[in-house]
C-alpha cells in the first residue's frame, strides 16, 4: 500500500463570530467579526513521517489537524493528499477519502457511542468501507484488532462506559487503524492519561508505525512528548507556524522566542545521580 504525502498549501481557516456571543478577551466586548484559527499555513508531510504540532490552546493545532483529515474546510488555500486536492477527493470519492484519513481525539469517552459495544464500534467502519465481507467477518476482525491494541477479545462485548480512559483510547486507536488509513491525526490523545498509560498508548502507536506505513500528525502541548514521538516538529502560535524543523533541533536549539518560552514553561525532572550512592539508607 502506498502512503500519501500531505501537502498543506497557504491554508487559512477563519471562524465567523456569531452575533450575541461577546468575547471578553480581545479588543473590547465586540471584537472582530471573524477569528483566524489558521493564517496562511504551509507545510509538507513526507510519507511515513510523524510530524508533531505543538503550541498553546488556541494556536490552531487542532484546526490544522482537522483540516488535514477533511473535517474542516479551509477558508482559503488547499490541501493535497497524494498530489490530489482534498476538496476534490471528498467530492468525488468521499468514502474512500474518509477511509484514508483518520483522526483520534483527546476524549475517547465522547468520541465513542456509549450504547454501542466496543466490538460493534470497531466492526462498523469495516462494514461501511466494505473491508469485511460479512458481519461475522467484521466482528472477527474487531476481536483481532482489540488484541492488537492490547485488549482482550472478550472486551468486544463491553460498552465504552465499562472501560478505563486508557482502554477507551485503545479502542479509539483500534477503530482508526481498522480501515488501514494512510494518514493518522492524533489530537492530544494522551492528555488525560497517567504517565504509564500514556507510555503504553505511545508505544502502541510506535508498534503500529513499524508494522504498517503511516503518515502521522501528533498534536500535543507536551514538548517532551512531541520530541519523543516525532521526526519533525511544527510550533504554532496564533494560527501561524513560527518554527519548524527536526525535533531535536527545535527543542535543543529553539530559534523563535515563542518556542523558547514554551520550552522554559515545561517543568522537567531533576537529573538522577549518575552513580548510585553507597546505599539509599541514611541512619
Amino acid at each position, binding site marked *: 500500500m502506498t502512503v500519501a504525502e500531505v501537502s498543506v498549501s497557504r491554508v487559512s481557516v477563519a471562524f465567523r463570530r456569531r452575533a450575541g456571543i461577546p468575547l471578553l478577551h480581545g479588543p473590547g466586548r465586540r471584537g472582530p467579526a471573524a477569528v483566524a484559527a489558521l493564517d496562511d499555513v504551509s507545510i509538507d508531510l513526507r510519507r511515513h513521517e510523524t510530524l508533531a504540532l505543538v503550541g498553546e490552546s488556541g494556536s490552531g493545532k487542532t484546526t490544522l489537524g482537522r483540516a488535514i483529515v477533511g473535517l474542516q474546510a479551509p477558508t482559503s488555500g488547499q490541501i493535497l493528499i497524494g498530489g490530489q486536492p482534498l476538496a476534490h477527493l471528498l467530492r468525488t470519492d468521499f468514502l474512500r477519502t474518509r477511509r484514508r484519513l483518520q483522526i483520534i481525539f483527546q476524549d475517547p469517552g465522547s468520541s465513542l457511542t456509549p450504547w454501542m459495544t466496543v466490538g460493534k464500534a470497531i466492526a462498523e467502519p469495516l462494514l461501511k468501507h466494505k473491508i469485511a465481507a460479512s458481519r461475522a467477518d467484521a466482528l472477527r476482525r474487531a476481536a483481532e484488532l482489540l488484541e492488537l491494541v492490547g485488549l482482550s477479545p472478550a472486551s468486544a462485548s463491553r460498552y465504552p462506559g465499562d472501560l478505563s480512559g486508557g482502554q477507551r483510547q485503545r479502542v479509539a486507536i483500534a477503530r482508526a487503524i481498522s480501515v488501514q488509513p494512510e494518514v493518522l491525526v492524533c489530537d492530544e490523545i494522551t492528555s488525560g492519561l497517567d504517565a504509564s498509560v500514556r507510555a503504553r498508548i505511545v508505544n502502541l502507536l510506535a508498534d503500529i508505525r513499524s508494522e504498517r506505513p503511516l503518515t502521522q500528525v501528533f498534536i500535543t502541548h507536551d514538548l517532551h512528548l512531541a520530541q519523543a514521538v516525532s521526526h519533525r516538529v511544527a510550533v504554532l502560535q496564533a494560527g501561524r507556524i513560527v518554527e519548524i524543523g527536526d525535533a531535536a533541533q527545535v527543542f535543543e536549539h529553539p530559534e523563535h522566542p515563542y518556542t523558547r518560552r514554551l520550552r522554559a514553561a515545561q517543568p522537567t525532572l531533576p537529573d*538522577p545521580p549518575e552513580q548510585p550512592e553507597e546505599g*539509599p539508607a541514611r541512619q
Partner: protein
Amino acid sequence: MTLPQSDSPAPGVSAASGQGTAPAGSGHALLSVRGLTIDAGGRDGFAPIVRDVSFGIGAGQALGLIGESGSGKTLTCMALGGLLPRGVRVTGGEILLNGTDLAQASERQLRRVRGGLIGFVFQDPGAALDPLSPVGAQLAEVARTHQAIGRARARSVALKLMDEMEIPKARDRYRAYPHELSGGMKQRMCIAMALAGNPRLLVADEPTTALDVTTERAILDLIGRLRAERDLALLLVTHSLPVAALMTDQLRVMYAGEMVEAGGTADCLAAPGHPYTEALAESARSVERSRDGRLVAIPGAVPGGVAATDRCVFAPRCPYATDQCVAGHPPWQPTRSGSAACIHVDRARKDGAR
C-alpha cells in the same frame, strides 16, 4: 461507625509520618493524618479503598501526593474536607488539623474548616464554578461566608483577590460568566475562592492537568508566590512527577490505596526507595529522553478491587518481586530521606544501577 484505632496497626506507618515530616524541619504539624482508612459500600458490604494512610504537613510546607489513577490520592484529599461521595466513608484513623480530629467532626465543624482552614482547588475549574452566575459575584459570596462583611465590602474584597490572582481587567471580569473565561482564568478564580477565607492549607487536586503548558506554568508560579506571601501550606495531588518536583519539598507515593513511600521530593525522585516510585520516575524520564517514539511503561495495571493485607500490593508488577514479597505485608524500611514499604529498598546497593 468509626473503628477504634488499634494500638499500632503497622509500626512502620508511624515511622513513615515521623520520618516524612522530619527533614523539612517544621516543628509543628498543621495537618497530621494517621492510619486513615476509607471504605466504599458495595454489594458485599464495605471494603477499604484507602488503607492505613499516614502523613503530616507542617505550616507553610508543600507536600506532593503522587500515584496512578486509582491509587486513592483524590479520596484522601476529599476525606480532609468531609467531601467523600455518598457511600464512601472514613472508617479508621484520624485527621488532625491543628489538633482537631476532622474524621470525628460534625458537618457544621467541617463547613467552617472547608475554605476556612483548608482551601480546595480541583482539576476542572469549569465544573467548580456555577455557570449561571457571574464569577465575581460567586467570589464575593464566598468572601461573605467567611467574613462578617456587607455586599459592598465583599465586592472590594473579591476585586482585591482577583488582582492578587493576577487576573487582568478584574473589574470587567467580575461581571463575566464562567464560559467567557479561559481555562487558566477560571482556575485563577477557583484559587481566589479557595483563598477567600485565608486558609492555612491549600489542597490542590491536579490543578493544572486540564491546562496547556504555558498556562500550567503560570498557575504553578502563582501558587508558589501565594504560598510564600501567605505562608500557605500545600497538599498537591498530581500524576506529573515534574510538577511535583517543581512545587513540593516532601513527597508521598500512593499505590492501590496504600502509601508505599515517604520522603523528600528530590531524594525520592533521584533515588527511589520503592520500586513503584522507581517505575514512575523511569516512565516520566523516558518522555524527556526518548528519541525513538518509545516510552517506558509499567507492566500490568493498578488492581481494581481491594488490596490484600498479607502481601505487597505492588508485587505482581514489580521487577524485584521475590517469594518473600507475597509472604507478608512489607514493613517500612528507611531510605535516603524517608522510608518505603518494601523489603528491597537496598536493591541498588546489591546489584548496582539498573
